[in-house]
């Protein structure tokens, strides 16, 4: 006997009300400038009802259809990252007092915890990785302050984009963990899963009804379908040894000819965490702010050490990005840094496809390939 877990679409607003009533600042997916962003959300009619996204390498478009659904899209250019790891923030400030002594101060931290509605499985997996980085042995107090108390309402993905490959990285389309509540969206409402005690306390206050077997089957089938429709994939397994054995592969230069070294891929990547810090003194030199902002392995500053830029060429930068993301992340964080969200494909202005490049670089080398071709000829397959 299934307990009550079905929420009518018309009751979704109650969920928002309960969460904001509990003192959270509620963010959810909203349309802005032709894309979907997580921004302040008060009413369900601010959600992207009927909107879907059509994505391909280097291209993103929203399309509207007659559908009651609010979450019939894959993802937008950003999700959780800018809300926890701010693109630019002041870490501390120093003032020179009248007597000449220096007074340091820290910025105020947010007073209300965040609740984010409509989070995808890929972005939950990315959150787990950002946690490993920012909350590891030396926790980052700025990230930690925003992360603490973060409430997450996930929505299982049923509308993957052409650029998605979360099924191949094992991170979606079903949200498996890391949420307080997870929803399956159907035309008439939502199947609600509880993932934490906090989620349970919210669910208890919702007007939930018993779901039908047909609803549960449809929800499961839609998620399975979302996995089955994905056509892109990364090469399987830990690519570390393969990638580091191919640091001289001709493909690095070939991709460098196309790559703009603009840093869009790393900026939209939900797991990339690189940043630069600089001091911004006031004109009168009586105060200075220490500012941190997103950086990228595609900038020259990223590999600058006194007097020299280590990775001056674009090919070296692309190699750094891929060998780190898909290779040495395994050593640092126990898994690949890619969660298959596909953003680096979509938001690359020239549409470079990480899965295609990884396949090319990790493909059997020429002599290995010749062996296989030889076998295939013998077997009459060529």
């Amino acid at each position: 006997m299934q307990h009550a877990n079905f929420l009518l679409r018309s009751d979704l607003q109650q969920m928002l009300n309960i969460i904001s009533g509990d003192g959270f600042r509620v963010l959810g997916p909203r349309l802005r400038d032709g894309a979907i962003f997580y921004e302040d959300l008060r009413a369900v009619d601010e959600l992207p009802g009927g909107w879907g996204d059509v994505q391909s390498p280097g291209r993103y478009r929203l399309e509207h259809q007659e559908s009651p659904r609010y979450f019939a899209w894959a993802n937008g250019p950003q999700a959780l990252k800018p809300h926890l790891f701010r693109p630019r923030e002041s870490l501390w400030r120093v003032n020179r007092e009248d007597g000449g002594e220096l007074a340091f101060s820290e910025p105020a931290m947010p007073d209300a915890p965040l609740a984010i509605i409509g989070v995808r499985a890929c972005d939950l997996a990315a959150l787990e990785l950002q946690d490993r980085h920012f909350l590891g042995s030396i926790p980052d107090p700025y990230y930690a302050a925003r992360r603490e108390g973060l409430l997450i309402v996930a929505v299982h993905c049923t509308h993957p984009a052409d650029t998605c490959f979360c099924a191949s990285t094992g991170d979606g389309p079903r949200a498996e963990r890391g949420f307080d509540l997870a929803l399956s969206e159907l035309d008439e409402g939502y199947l609600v899963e509880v993932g934490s005690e906090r989620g349970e306390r919210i669910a208890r206050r919702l007007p939930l009804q018993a779901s039908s077997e047909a609803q549960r089957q449809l929800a499961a089938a839609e998620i399975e379908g979302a996995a089955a429709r994905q056509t892109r994939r990364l090469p399987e397994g830990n690519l570390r040894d393969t990638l580091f054995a191919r640091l001289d592969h001709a493909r690095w230069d070939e991709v460098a000819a196309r790559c703009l070294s603009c840093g869009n891929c790393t900026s939209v990547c939900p797991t990339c965490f690189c940043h630069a810090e600089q001091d911004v003194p006031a004109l009168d030199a009586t105060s200075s702010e220490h500012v941190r902002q997103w950086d990228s392995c595609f900038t020259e500053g990223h590999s600058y050490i006194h007097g020299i830029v280590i990775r001056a060429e674009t090919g070296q930068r692309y190699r750094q990005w891929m060998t780190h993301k898909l290779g040495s992340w395994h050593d640092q964080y126990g898994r690949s840094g890619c969660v298959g969200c596909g953003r680096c494909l979509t938001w690359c202005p020239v549409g470079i496809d990480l899965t295609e490049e990884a396949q090319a670089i990790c493909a059997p080398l020429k002599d290995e390939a010749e062996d296989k071709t030889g076998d295939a000829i013998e077997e009459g397959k060529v």
Partner: protein
Amino acid sequence: MSKPSVAVHKFSSCDGCQLAFLNAGEDLLTLSGLVDIRHFLEAGLADEEAEVDIAFVEGSISTADEAERIRKVRAKSRLLVTLGACATSGGLQALRNLDESNEDWKQAIYARPEFIRTLAHAEPVRAHVRVDFELWGCPVNGRQVLAAVRQLLFGVNPLDERDKVCMECKRQNVVCVMVAHDKPCMGPVTRTGCGALCPRFGRDCYACFGPAEQANTSALAQRLEGLGLPPADVARRFLFINSQAPAFHAEGLKHYQPGFANGDRQ
């Protein structure tokens, strides 16, 4: 100890970059307390011959008189900083360099062209004298200008912001106008400094801050062609405000058709 002295010199330009100082509001008052501004015609201070610690130079070198005057400015300045696209890369007026069309323009525009004495080419200051630091942009960004002043007063090299505009767009959560709207954006090859001003308003960057480091102009040109831009328009994207910046000049010429500077679209 006397205050460091500053001069702001104008050559061939629209005067817009000097407004970075004049529009600075309270910062202008602060600045006037920090430095001794000796020459700044637009602010009513005239002492062109003054020896100064820092000379800001706006405008390109466009006449024989200017070529002479910039050498004097250099000789009387400890540090020389260019202020904006004209001084740094020739500016809009350097489009006349493309077709050797100076004479044609002179005849077309002026009622008495015989009184106009210009050099065949409008050139960046760097082509004539040594430059210590370059501030890009059409116009420059006031924040960058004042930051450079502050750093020079500290006795350090100003921070040279050479990242692409894309980095700034992403830091500001701006939707990519190329990926989401097919606009022929120059952001991926253009240096940041403007604060992603155009994309923040849904416009494509037109490269007024000049080439970024590692600007892959040929890959972007190919993408612009993919968006349907004919070669003359691709050329215009590169040969516009910073046509004399080497990276843009070289790429622009690959797509360039003679007659362009005369408005003859053939």
